[in-house]
């Protein structure tokens, strides 16, 4: 495996002078090609900020980010980003929103019809493709947003709390789907979440971030076999990882 994303002394300060907010860093970290890494941390610790900096959509105050060997100085267009607030536009249907990603990239949606169908089926939205976003539940909107973010088949995915608004059952289902998708295609995934179990179930590594200003407290290698189904989740090893992580948050006083 080779390094895909390299963070060197990455720091973000919003504003300047007396009103400056030190939101994140300094952080050094490398993310390998093909790994599934979770960013786990309390609200406001800078997870979204970090994702936006990796995507080149937010300036870095200090430090450097390298993506696939190149310095990140502007928007990165060959990755897939799922933003924390979904980017579905209200004037297009689910299908139209997915096509929007292609159209913006100058790709004719007609040439990708089969891919879109498959993507919609994989998140069980095939019967809702002609619906408008406001006709969908929050969870369905999130799944549609996932399709929108992934339709151009990026090899690197930045997912900012993609399962945040889902109910426990759907959440479990989508985790399973996400895991098999990752096992099949082996994209590099940076996954933001609040859920300790989710992070451990899905990831090869979990980066635990401190409260603001966010720093990496510990990076935990999750050495469990894939797929991590019900049996793995009830194993003592899994529980040990959960305890280890909870311990860190208990020390911060956030749980």
């Amino acid at each position: 495996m080779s390094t895909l994303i390299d963070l060197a002394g990455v720091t973000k300060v919003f504003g300047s002078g007396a009103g400056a907010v030190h939101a994140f860093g300094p952080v050094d970290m490398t993310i390998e090609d093909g790994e599934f890494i979770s960013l786990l941390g309390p609200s406001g610790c800078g997870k979204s900020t970090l994702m936006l900096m990796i995507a080149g959509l937010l300036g870095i105050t200090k430090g450097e980010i390298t993506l696939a060997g190149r310095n990140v100085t502007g928007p990165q267009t060959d990755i897939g980003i799922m933003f924390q607030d979904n980017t579905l536009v209200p004037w297009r249907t689910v299908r139209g929103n997915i096509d929007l990603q292609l159209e913006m990239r100058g790709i004719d949606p007609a040439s990708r019809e089969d891919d879109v169908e498959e993507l919609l089926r994989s998140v069980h939205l095939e019967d809702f493709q002609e619906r408008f976003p406001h006709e969908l539940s929050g969870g369905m909107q999130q799944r549609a947003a996932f399709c929108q973010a992934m339709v151009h088949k990026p090899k690197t995915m930045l997912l900012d709390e993609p399962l945040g608004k889902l109910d426990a059952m759907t959440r479990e289902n989508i985790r399973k789907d996400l895991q098999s998708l990752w096992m099949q295609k082996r994209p590099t995934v940076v996954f933001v979440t609040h859920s300790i179990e989710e992070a451990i179930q899905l990831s090869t590594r979990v980066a635990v971030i401190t409260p603001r200003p966010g720093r990496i407290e510990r990076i935990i290698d999750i050495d469990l076999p894939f797929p991590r189904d019900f049996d793995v989740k009830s194993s003592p090893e899994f529980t040990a990882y959960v305890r280890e992580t909870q311990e860190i948050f208990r020390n911060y006083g956030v749980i």
Partner: protein
Amino acid sequence: MASSDKPSLLMRASDTIVRSWMFIAFFIGFFLFWEYAVVWFDIPRYILTPPSLIVQKGAADLDRLLYYTYVTGLETVLGYVVAIVLALPIGLAIAFSTILRRTIYPFLVCIEMVPKIAFAPLFISWLGFGLLPKVIIVFLVCFFPIVLNAILAFNSLSEELTRFARSTGASAWTTFLKIRLPAALPQCFVGFKYAAINATVGAAIAEFIGSDEGLGFYIQIVTGNMRPDLAFAGIFFLTLLGLGLFGIVTLAERLLIPWHISVRRTTH
């Protein structure tokens, strides 16, 4: 899906009927009260006439009323259309140019404070009694709400959508066509509708000040002749004109941004 949609649709329909039934009853009640109050309180005819007489006398003068409706309608529509045609590109330019936003925009906001109608006598003294000064006044009344709402519309794209657009690497033009423009339409229509309501007001006042035809002229003349019945008939046609323009704009809104209307419908 369809079966779960039906009862709510039916309920909504019956809801609307109940609400508008009360409204219609109130409306009829209002005119009945007017009709009989004039008789009961023995109000002289040169002060106020009952609605039945307005209809009767208005019908007798229908040719003149219809022609004047056409005259005022032409002034209104011309001024309104010119306002849209000029305000949209200017609004766009201001929204996307920092220099214009720092120079012309504050200037426009200052002028917006001036009651445009106050310019009416000046324009009429400069340009005479004809069509042009009325069109200019309607234009002035309509231009500002349209341009200010357009600037707001094109400047208020959500941060998330801005980022999404940048992450795709799309050109500014593609981003404009596929995201900025459709996202701006609802706010633009706020301006169009506000202007549509005020357009006939502008035309009527301009005609009060100096004209020899049109509904404003008519209302002023017949009022001077102690004919409130005909004045009300003129007001009725002026109202129809305003409603007509507003109706067309609302129809255009439904056609252009059905998604927005439907959002509003389900949230209420």
